[in-house]
C-alpha cells in the first residue's frame, strides 16, 4: 500500500483537509487494523493518536492510505506515540511516501517568513529532490492574506507542484482527490 502523508505545522489545516477529502470521496475513515495502521513496528499505545486513515483504491495499482502526521513544530512533541508516528513518517517522506506538505497560506501572507518553521523549509527541500513524490498544499485559501501567502510560497519554497485548497469552501479538494487517485506506485507492487 502506498502512503500519502499530510505533513506540516500544528494548525496548518491537515485534519480539516483529510476530513474534506473523505467527504468528497464519500468514504469513511478507516480505523486501526482496517486502516492497516500503523503499518509496521510497535503499536503506538498513547491516546490521541490519529489512528485513522482514508484509504483510496487506485484500481490495479493497489491502494493509497492517506493519513495525518502529528504537527511538525519547532520542538519535539511530548507524547512518545506521536513522536513514533513522526519518525516513521519522516523515513517515508524521504523514500517512497507521497508528501502532502500542508502550509497555512493565510498565515504566510499575514506574517511572512515568521509563519514558516524549519520543518517547512526542509520539507520543501525534500520536495525539490522528490519531484512527483511531493505536493505543496497551500491551505486555508478562504482566509484573508492567503493569496499573498500563496504567491510567497511559490517564490520562497519553489515547490515542484502546488495546489491551493480550502477545507472551509472546498476549493481544490476535488482536484486533490483526482490527483491522489492518479498516484502510481514508485516501485513495482509487492516490493513493500
Amino acid at each position: 500500500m502506498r502512503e500519502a502523508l499530510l505533513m506540516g505545522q500544528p494548525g496548518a489545516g491537515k485534519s480539516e483537509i483529510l476530513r474534506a477529502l473523505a467527504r468528497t470521496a464519500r468514504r469513511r475513515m478507516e480505523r486501526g487494523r482496517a486502516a492497516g495502521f500503523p503499518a509496521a513496528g510497535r503499536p503506538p499505545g498513547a491516546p490521541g493518536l490519529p489512528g485513522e486513515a482514508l484509504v483510496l483504491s487506485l484500481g490495479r495499482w493497489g491502494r493509497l492510505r492517506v493519513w495525518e502526521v502529528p504537527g511538525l513544530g519547532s520542538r519535539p512533541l511530548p507524547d512518545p506515540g506521536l513522536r513514533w508516528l513522526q519518525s516513521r513518517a519522516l523515513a517515508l517522506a524521504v523514500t517512497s511516501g507521497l508528501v502532502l506538505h500542508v502550509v497555512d497560506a493565510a498565515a504566510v501572507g499575514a506574517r511572512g517568513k515568521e509563519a514558516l518553521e524549519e520543518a517547512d523549509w526542509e520539507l520543501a527541500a525534500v520536495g525539490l529532490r522528490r519531484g512527483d513524490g511531493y505536493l505543496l498544499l497551500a491551505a486555508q485559501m478562504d482566509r484573508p492574506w492567503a493569496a499573498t501567502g500563496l504567491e510567497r510560497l511559490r517564490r520562497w519554497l519553489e515547490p515542484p507542484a502546488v495546489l491551493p485548497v480550502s477545507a472551509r469552501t472546498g476549493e481544490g479538494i476535488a482536484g486533490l482527490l483526482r490527483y491522489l487517485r492518479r498516484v502510481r506506485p514508485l516501485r513495482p507492487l509487492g516490493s513493500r
Partner: protein
Amino acid sequence: MVAVSFPAELWRRVEAGTLSPGEALRLFRTGSAPTAGTPGDLSGSPSPSRKSRVPARTGPEAGGEAAEAERLRQSLAVLAELDALVGLEGVKRSVREIGAMARVQELRRRAGLATGAMTLHMVFTGHPGTGKTTVARILGRFFQALGILPRGHLVEVERADLVGEYIGHTAVKTRETIRRALGGVLFIDEAYSLARGGEKDFGKEAIDCLVKAAEDHRQELLVILAGYPAEMEWFLVQNPGLQSRFPIRIHFPDYSPAELYQIAEQMLAEQQYRLTADARAYLRGKLQGAGWSFAGEAGNARAVRNLLERALRCQALRLLDRAHLGREDLMTITRRDLEEACRSW
C-alpha cells in the same frame, strides 16, 4: 558509525525526542549524523526563521454576532494589507469609503431597511505597474470579508479572453469568462481595446454581453475596467451606456521617485536581500535621474521589480566563482549588481 546508522539514527532521535523533525530533515539533507548530546546545535542552518508560530486563529463560527465580528476582523486584516502598499493614498481612501458604504448598505438590507441600489462596478485608470491589479485583488478579498462578494477571487482577462473569431463565438467566450468570475472580481485589463475595431468588430458584442452580466449579477460580481487614462476616457465617451453602469472611478497616479525607492526596499526586504550604502545611493539617483524615467509608460513599480530581478541575477553571477559564501554575501546587493542590471535593460 555515520555510514551504518544514517539516516535511521536521525529518525530514531526524533522518536526519542532529542531532535525536532525539522532538525532531522536538515541533518538528512546536509548528510550529517547528529552529534551526541547536542540536539539543539543549529549552526549553519539555512532556514531563515525558526521562530515558533503564535497560534492566533479563530474556529469556524456559525452565523450571528460571532460571524459578524469575524467578518470585521477579516476585513480589517485585508485593509492592513492595503495600507502596507507604498503611496496610493487617494486609492486607499476610496477603497475604504466604498467598502464602508457597501457594508452599511448590506447590513441595512439584512435588517430590512430601505437601501439605495448600489452599483459597485468600477473603472481603474493608470499607467502599467501603478498597482491596479494588486489593488483589485485586495478589493475582492475586502468585499468577501465584508460579506458583499461570496468568493472574492480575481479573474484577470484581456480582449483575447473575451472576443471570439466568428459569429457567436464571442458570446460563448465572454459568458464562460463571466462564469469563472462569478462570486468575485472580473478585472478587464486594457478594456478600451474592446472598442478598437469599431461597430463591426466582435469587441462590441463582448461589451454588450459584459454590460448585461454586470447588471444581472450585480449581487455576485464586481467588474473592473482598467487601462491607460486617456484611452479609458475615450472608451467611456464612445460607449455612453457604460458610464452609468460603471459609476466608480479610481485613478492610480504614477509613483514619485521616493515612492519607487520605498517600493524597491520593500520588495528586497520581502525576499531577504539588502542594498549596500553605495547601492542605495545609486538606486536613488537612478530613480530620480533624468532620461531614466520609471514613471509613465515605463512601468512604474513593475519596472522596479524587473530591475531588481535582474540585479539578483547579476549578484548570483558575481558570486559564481567564489567558494565560501556567508549569509551576508548571499543577502547583499552591491552597486555593481545594480549597474550591471541597468546596463542589460
